[in-house]
């Protein structure tokens, strides 16, 4: 894999070098220099005149790809991309992959290094995705209406924070959070009730399983009709969407404790509530958190989709559908970016809480 990537980057560098050199003397010196460096580095990996140890080659790959990214991004300001631009892009991208490949093969005993590597590698991937996006949209002159560049989206986010915040408050803080709390809470309570009756368990579980496979977002128009245009109807959709995953998972979780453990509780003469709080609920926590995690993404989806069926003039779903109509695509992407960040944070917080509460579970201890 290393050799293939080195070959690709070398070829890209060579193309960049030749094309930039073929241009007249005003041709970009920086691209030429970058091409030359990449070709030399690729030779180092492919021909191996001197045997490189692990670290220097990692540093070379990382350093060169970063230089390449900065250089290419600075080239974007000129009206037409310099000759050899795309060759250099391919070279820099292959080098970045090589860098990641190298980083991934590092096995460190030190907790801190291993931890930061686990964070750094996906981060690099994300940054490079943005760089390629920027290079492609601006380098190829993709119209703003189709796909705005990340920098344009960022500028838009900064310039319209007030609107974004209002939408966030309407959709996330009202509809999503309230709906999520109500849906998960009622699902949990009903699950506790069902758990007391084996008859209901056998009757409701198959139905609950079926319902969680159904396209529940479809109730959105009904809820909008019943509860009006404001956030209450969106919260209602979220409640319906989050209820069944919670119900099914909690019931399954409450059944998870073993017969031996329950027998032990019985020999202690523990009552229903004691057994529930000391044995069965802790045992059910991984299942409950599973539902909470599933629901965190479902809730956002439900709230945003429900806004397509009628809203007051604020809200993330509303903004997305109207700004698409007005061809303000950068605003749409700004909303999407905000939704993505909010969704990821929500999920991340639930995961953190899960780690705090289920620290004893094997999947977290490893």
């Amino acid at each position: 894999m290393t050799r293939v990537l080195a070959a690709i980057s070398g070829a890209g560098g060579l193309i960049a070098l030749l094309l930039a050199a073929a241009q007249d003397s005003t041709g970009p010196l920086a691209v030429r220099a970058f091409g030359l460096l990449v070709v030399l580095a690729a030779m180092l990996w492919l021909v191996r005149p001197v045997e490189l140890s692990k670290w220097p080659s990692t540093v070379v790959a990382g350093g060169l790809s970063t230089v390449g990214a900065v250089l290419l991004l600075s080239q974007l300001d000129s009206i037409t991309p310099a000759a050899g631009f795309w060759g250099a892009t391919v070279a820099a991208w292959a080098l970045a992959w090589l860098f990641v490949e190298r980083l991934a093969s590092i096995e460190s005993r030190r907790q801190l290094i291993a931890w930061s590597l686990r964070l750094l590698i996906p981060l690099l991937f994300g940054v490079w995705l943005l760089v390629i996006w920027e290079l492609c949209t601006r380098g190829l002159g993709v119209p703003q209406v189709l796909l705005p560049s990340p920098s344009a989206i960022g500028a838009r986010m900064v310039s319209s924070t007030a609107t974004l915040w209002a939408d966030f408050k309407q959709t996330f803080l009202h509809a999503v959070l309230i709906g999520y709390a109500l849906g998960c809470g009622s699902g949990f309570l009903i699950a506790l009730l069902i758990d007391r009756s084996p008859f209901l368990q056998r009757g409701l579980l198959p139905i609950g399983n079926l319902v969680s496979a159904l396209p529940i977002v479809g109730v959105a128009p009904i809820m909008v009709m019943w509860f009006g245009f404001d956030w209450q109807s969106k919260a209602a959709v979220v409640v319906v969407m989050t209820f069944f995953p919670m119900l099914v998972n909690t019931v399954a979780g409450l059944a998870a404790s073993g017969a031996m453990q329950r027998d032990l509780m019985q020999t202690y003469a523990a009552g229903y509530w004691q057994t529930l709080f000391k044995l069965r609920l802790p045992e059910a926590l991984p299942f409950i958190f599973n539902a909470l995690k599933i629901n965190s993404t479902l809730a956002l989806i439900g709230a945003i989709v429900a806004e397509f069926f009628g809203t007051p003039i604020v809200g993330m779903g509303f903004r997305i559908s109207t700004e698409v109509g007005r061809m303000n695509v950068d605003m749409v992407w700004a909303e999407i970016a905000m939704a993505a960040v909010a969704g990821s944070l929500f999920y991340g917080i639930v995961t953190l809480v899960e780690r705090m509460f289920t620290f004893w579970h094997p999947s977290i201890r490893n």
Partner: protein
Amino acid sequence: MWPVIVVITGIVVIWYGSAVMLNKPFQHDMYKRANVENVSFSQLLGDTLNQERPVLPAPHQVYQELYKTTVEKKITSKRSLIYHSWITLSTALSGFVMGTLLGILLAVGIIHNRALDKSLMPWIIASQTIPILAIAPMIIVVLNAIGIQGLLPKAFISTYLSFFPVAVGMVKGLRSPETSHLDLMRTYNASAWQTFWKLRLPASLPFLFTSMKVAVAIAMVGAIVGELPTGAVAGLGARLLAGSYYGQTIQIWSALVMASVLAACLVGLVSLGNRWVLARMGASA
């Protein structure tokens, strides 16, 4: 079996009860306007359950609408629910197939390449916290602008939603063979390809089918939502949107029931496939 039937009966009874409760205020209003007084309870009951645009349609109204739009209409008619269902179904299925293939491909890449595993996996998880359904109108408009129309843009949304469970499940499944089994393959001097084909893939099939059940259900959701921004032309999502514009509650409910039946059938089909494949492989269950 009995508990399920009892619970379903209970749900239907509750449904009728709430239909009466929710439709009553409007019915009283109607009586007042028509200057009808001393309405008997049985008449009130009958009227609330047979309104034209009820707040909550009664089950038999939904059933009648379903019967009218499936059996009595020609399939080619735009009023036929079968016509709309087919559009949604074909979108969901093509998205599901593409998503499953993409998920399997990603999973294979992830277990064979460390760099991919470390850099891609967190993003695959993060990708699902992005509410793609919110981006659906965007994607459809953009793809329309570059000339991709019809089924594909909607199918892409289903693809995006359904690749995730498959990718995650397959990674788990392909890694499920025990170390001793992998060691055995090594003592046979099996290549990576042979290990994959003879050990990892068969071991991953139960995981694949479990994820495919989730994926097919979610592909259906994607197809329905994908139909919303195109302006209610065709499909079950369009029926929902049109129904909500014109207050046709019975139409909304019948589309919803149809979508649910379709989703349940799809999941059932995948389970059947699961059983068939596992039986062919000689699994005991």
